[in-house]
């Protein structure tokens, strides 16, 4: 394989579908640099008015938790129902609370 056969690094793509909403991950692509990544993201992920703003982020820059972290990261919240409103008993007849 020649040196120039490279597809370039991976860029993850996030799109804001309309003002006021959060950017959402939609997929990824390969590109040599950030400008090409943005251009390619426009062609690949917004052919049908999918959004009003695009972020491209180098895949290498993303730090992800792994399934091994699940227990330490996410299980502690299982027994903390007091962090949700349904945990609390309201006096009968109380409204708008």
């Amino acid at each position, binding site marked *: *394989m020649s040196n120039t056969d490279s597809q370039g690094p991976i860029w993850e793509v996030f799109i804001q579908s309309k003002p006021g909403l959060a950017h959402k991950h939609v*997929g990824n692509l390969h590109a040599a640099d950030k400008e090409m990544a943005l251009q390619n993201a426009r062609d690949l992920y917004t052919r049908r008015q999918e959004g009003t703003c695009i972020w491209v982020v180098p895949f290498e820059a993303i730090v992800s938790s792994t399934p091994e972290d699940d227990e330490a990261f996410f299980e502690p919240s299982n027994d903390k129902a007091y962090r949700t409103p349904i945990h609390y008993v309201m006096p009968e007849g109380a409204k708008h609370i």
Partner: protein
Amino acid sequence: MEDIKKLEEFQAKIDAEIKIEPKDWMPEDYRKHLQRQISQHAHSEIIGMQPEGNWLLRAPSLRAKVVLLAKIQDEAGHGLYLYSAAETLGKSRTEYLNELKTGKAKYSSIFNYPTLTWADMGAVGWLVDGAAIVNQVSLQRTSYGPYARGMVKICKEESFHQRQGYEIIADMAKGTPEQKEMAQDALNRFWWPSIMMFGPHDSDSPNTGNAVKWKIKRATNDQLRQSFIDKTVHQAEIIGLTIPDPDLKWNEERGSYDFGEMDWDEFWSVVKGGGPCSKQRLKHYNDAHNNGEWVREAAKAYTDKQTSKQNVA
């Protein structure tokens, strides 16, 4: 021992309809099956641009040309979504592309048939995309997260493809006698290859067992084929065309159409590279890739220059 436990946990997740994500443990055979299936699917989208590209410069109206161009661009996009999903399984884009370039990887045999007339653009959209959609709708529920997400996106975009094809063939079917004959001829040539797109009968499909157990496939080849035939027969009838199968008959008891046996000798011969356009498709793909060499070279040179400038600053 640990693997048996992991395998049980894996199967329990599958049974509970919990998607498998790239970092999760998965059996090696599950990974291999997906690498093969998703990359073949991607290659099919990419090679699938060629039979339609053949008519781009001869489309009969500006509207037809704009539509065909958008459809071909979608196919390229779908190929890229699928390569992205395949890459999450620990194999690089370049590796997958090399397998296509060297002919080691397969793609759907349907694209090794020529598109001889404009009516073929109708048949391809109506039947080939129609069959692909039946398969892809079912794959939206596949157990591997990235593949399922890709399928959802593809199905959403794909829905116009079949309609544009059906519109073309319906228009020709109500045109001059010559045009109607052309439409019938396209149906005659594409019918059998289309229903063979679903692959061999379940009884002759060695990969079906695990693929169903692991919910990679949500329906078998024969189930999907039947579903496609059942919805397509009526579409042929209302535009006055005849499906070229003398054994096609409504079966009241099954609530489905019975149909004739496919020519499996032809199927396997085309799968093994003996299709009318097999060599041409692969050569064209390689030529296009090689012609893009200067673009990749320039992009890399530009990036290297930017990076070295940054380092100096």
